[in-house]
């Protein structure tokens, strides 16, 4: 039997799952909750500060991973979920799921490079 090519998408799925479990909640707390609940001063996430931060290539990289990895994780998860629900059009499901993840990836790259 030929060895499968699935490691390509599965590695993104696994990395995305780990990232989404450990880093995404922290991102949500910082960007979504901390400010609203007054745990951070209002100017902490001001436009000037954040646009300054994002000029740093490391910060760009982290923001890219925040979009890229969970997007591919979600894409693969949805493909498997579709299969578990009995949808057997794997080719079509693959195109839709991985296509959306590709769009998210390209948009993230474009947005970050144009900042």
């Amino acid at each position, binding site marked *: 039997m030929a*060895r499968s090519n*699935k490691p390509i998408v599965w590695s993104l799925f696994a990395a995305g799952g780990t990232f989404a479990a450990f880093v995404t909640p922290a991102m949500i707390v910082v960007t979504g909750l901390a400010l609203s609940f007054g745990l951070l001063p209002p100017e902490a996430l001001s436009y000037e500060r954040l646009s300054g931060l994002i000029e740093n290539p490391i910060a760009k990289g982290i923001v890219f991973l925040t979009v890229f990895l969970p997007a591919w994780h979600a894409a693969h998860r949805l493909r498997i979920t579709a299969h*578990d629900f009995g949808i057997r059009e794997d080719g079509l499901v693959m195109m839709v799921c991985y296509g959306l993840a590709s769009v998210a990836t390209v948009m993230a790259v474009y947005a970050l490079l144009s900042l």
Partner: protein
Amino acid sequence: MSLRTFELEIMRYDPDKDSEPRFETFSVPCEEDWVVLDAVNYVKDNLDRTLSYRWSCHMAVCGSCGMMINGEPSLSCKTFMRHMPDKIRIEPLANFPIERDLVVVMDDFMDKLASVKPYLVAKEKKAVEDGSYLQSPAQLKKFKQYTLCINCTLCYSACPQYALGEGFVGPAALALAHRYNLDSRDVGRSARADVVASNEGIWECSFVGACSEVCPEHVDPAGAIQQTKIASTLDYFKDLITPGRDK
């Protein structure tokens, strides 16, 4: 001890007479400490001697008495009657062809088991007088859990992926492949990968996890498959970077 009477609805199939399986109901007075296998044995001994099923050890070691008990793949020797409702439906293990009554055809499982080379592939063959292959307790601990499989095939009955009949190698065989891959004395990992890392191998698993839930020996085949996915993914990228590194 108190007797309680149960209705056993047992699936029957005689390939010489029946065009399809049917159910037959038996009333069985059970003792407090009986397991389902005792009740089935009662039917065979007292009510219908033609009832066919597999069993041997009566103590969850041999792995032969697996049946669907109220829709759940279970070892009938490990399922107590006192935990059961008054009416019990007993069927042959799901996802396998029925040979007769509760006996299923296991050929597909046997072929798949053999296909993953579930034995020690040693680096060099040692003569008996040269002694055994030594291993530390820490090295044994890495894979010991996966040696506990008794080949009862409950995991194949529970697996929705195996049920599709698309050639999935299946939980027990893949867990056993993982057991030998983790063994410090073994060098067969790349030989096993032809089956294990194929589309019909670990990659067919969608991690539903039902195999681990029904496993009577707590082998956790789902966990073994996920660990194999990580190892195979690393192998895949290593092979891309340095083609032919195994050869």
